């Protein structure tokens, strides 16, 4: 192998790794705040990517209607759980969030969609749609069982993944889609060529990491999310609504997933079920980070991306096998290093 190929592989690996890093960070965030291992993270990627791709062709993606339907269910749940103490403010808030928001969004999609809609508008619409789905997914599937064990939450998470993937097939069909690139610019440095798309990937990844760091370190909401992750009862005792924390975590995760999808859909063809595999690689990074460490997760994600790039060059048939094998030594090491801990009871 010569240096040029190595550099190419490295570049490719880092680009993919940056995406895995974003997804891994979202997984750590959601797990820390809600104890949910977010298997449907991959669906946020696909939904974001394919909604964007469909909007770019001038069609209304089914995800926009799904958001409205999920909003209705969320509203019904809100009413049901608050039935003993219904007050007007609560109902108005619930109507605004669960019914008015997704309906307005659907209206906006219908009004703006067309073959000549600017890319930025399509991106914004795709992000809003997936954000709404993420928010309602927490309300419907996880908030009612927030106090149960990690295992129950995981099973619910797998269920959500299967349901969303099935719906993905309905909305986007079995054929893959590609979306238009964010920019056609390219920079050449020596033998390497950086497309505008890959630069956007780096820029957004770094931007998101910095933004998350600022958010968690310096804002009241960010600190409240961390507090919920550290001590759920303690957080409730100072008046932090843990359900709100969960909603914010899911909102961030779905937006991060959708952005990742929009970043890769111009590079590779995405199918309705591609997201799962991409999300799983973010998951490996998150596991290497112990589901708690953000920096370790980001570094691990880059390693996963590079290992993937090199193994696809040397043994492309075993690419996935090699990548997923990475998790084994980590799990063995972790199980040796830390004695088994009984799950904390709420």
């Amino acid at each position, binding site marked *: 192998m010569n240096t040029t190929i190595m550099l190419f592989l490295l570049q490719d690996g880092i680009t993919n790794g940056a995406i895995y890093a974003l997804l891994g960070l979202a997984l750590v965030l959601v797990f820390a705040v809600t104890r949910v291992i977010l298997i449907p993270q991959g669906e946020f990627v696909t939904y974001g990517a394919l909604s964007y791709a469909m909007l770019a062709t001038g069609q209304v993606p089914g995800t926009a209607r799904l958001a409205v339907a999920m909003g209705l269910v969320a509203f019904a749940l809100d009413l049901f759980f608050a039935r003993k103490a219904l007050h007007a403010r609560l109902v108005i808030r619930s109507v605004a969030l669960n019914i008015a928001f997704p309906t307005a969004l659907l209206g906006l999609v219908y009004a703006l969609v067309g073959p000549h809609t600017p890319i930025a508008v399509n991106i914004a619409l795709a992000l809003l749609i997936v954000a709404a789905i993420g928010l309602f997914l927490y309300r419907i599937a996880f908030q009612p069982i927030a106090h149960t064990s990690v295992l129950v939450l995981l099973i619910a998470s797998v269920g959500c993944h299967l349901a969303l993937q099935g719906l993905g097939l309905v909305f986007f069909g079995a054929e893959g889609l590609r979306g238009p690139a964010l920019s056609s610019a390219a920079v050449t440095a020596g033998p390497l060529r950086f497309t505008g798309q890959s630069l956007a990937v780096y820029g957004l990844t770094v931007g998101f990491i910095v933004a998350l760091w600022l958010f968690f370190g310096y804002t009241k909401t960010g600190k409240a999310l961390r*507090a919920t992750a550290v001590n759920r009862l303690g957080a409730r005792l*100072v008046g932090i609504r843990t359900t709100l924390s969960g909603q914010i975590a899911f909102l961030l995760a779905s937006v991060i997933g959708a952005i990742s999808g929009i970043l890769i859909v111009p590079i590779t063809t995405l199918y309705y079920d591609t997201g799962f595999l991409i999300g799983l690689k973010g998951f490996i990074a998150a596991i290497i980070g112990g589901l708690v460490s953000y920096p370790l997760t980001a570094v691990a994600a880059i390693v996963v991306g590079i290992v993937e790039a090199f193994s696809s060059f040397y043994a492309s048939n075993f690419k996935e096998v090699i990548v997923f094998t990475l998790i084994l030594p980590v799990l063995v090491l972790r199980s040796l290093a830390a004695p088994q801990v009984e799950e904390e009871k709420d």
Partner: protein
Amino acid sequence: MSALLTVTDVHIAYGKVEAVRGVSLDVGGNEIVTIIGANGAGKTTLLNAIMGVLPLRGRTVFAGVDMAPLDIEDRVATGLSLVPEHRELFGTMNVEDNLELGAFRIPKAIAATSLERVYALFPRLKERRKQLAGTLSGGEQQMLAMGRALMGAPKLLMLDEPSLGLAPIIVADIFRIVGELRSAGVSVLLVEQNAQAALQIADRAYVMELGEFVLSGSAKDIAANKGVAASYLGFQHEGESAI
């Protein structure tokens, strides 16, 4: 004057086992009330249920508001605050962040003055404000837990075993501060195994045994009660049995 907190005929059960049976109590404004009793009497259970951490059967009214439909978070907003036995601090965050989060429901401007007040009460916390809460000593953690609760400007502070596992000199310090809270307009409901110290600062007291109140009255009377003295204060009067 109507009471700040009124608890009427409360029952609390863990499954089929009733840990608290038919308990009623009240706490007025600017008052320190203590519940004393042996380990396992149900004191902690009662405080947790008043806060909404555990479900209860019965009636709890705080500041004129029926607590039954409210979650923990909403009870905090009405001015009720609990410093739990295990303190439940945010261990991986520093002292100042813990305190700031204590004022989560309070406007920023008011929180700033609260912070000054808490630092004035606990100068030690100000010295350690950049230290992680998990690395503080037991006494400092107790101070932080109380400080965090006070940041929310509560009307009633419920303290669960604040002296547990602390050195006597720190216990004295903490009880002195509890006394100061009354003059600052905060009522205190204090659960303590250290009955002697609790009775010294309290206005009124309830004695709890096996999930029921067996005695109540002014702290002075309770402290003078021979049965209480024998059971909880470590004095044995001749010819008297425990309650």
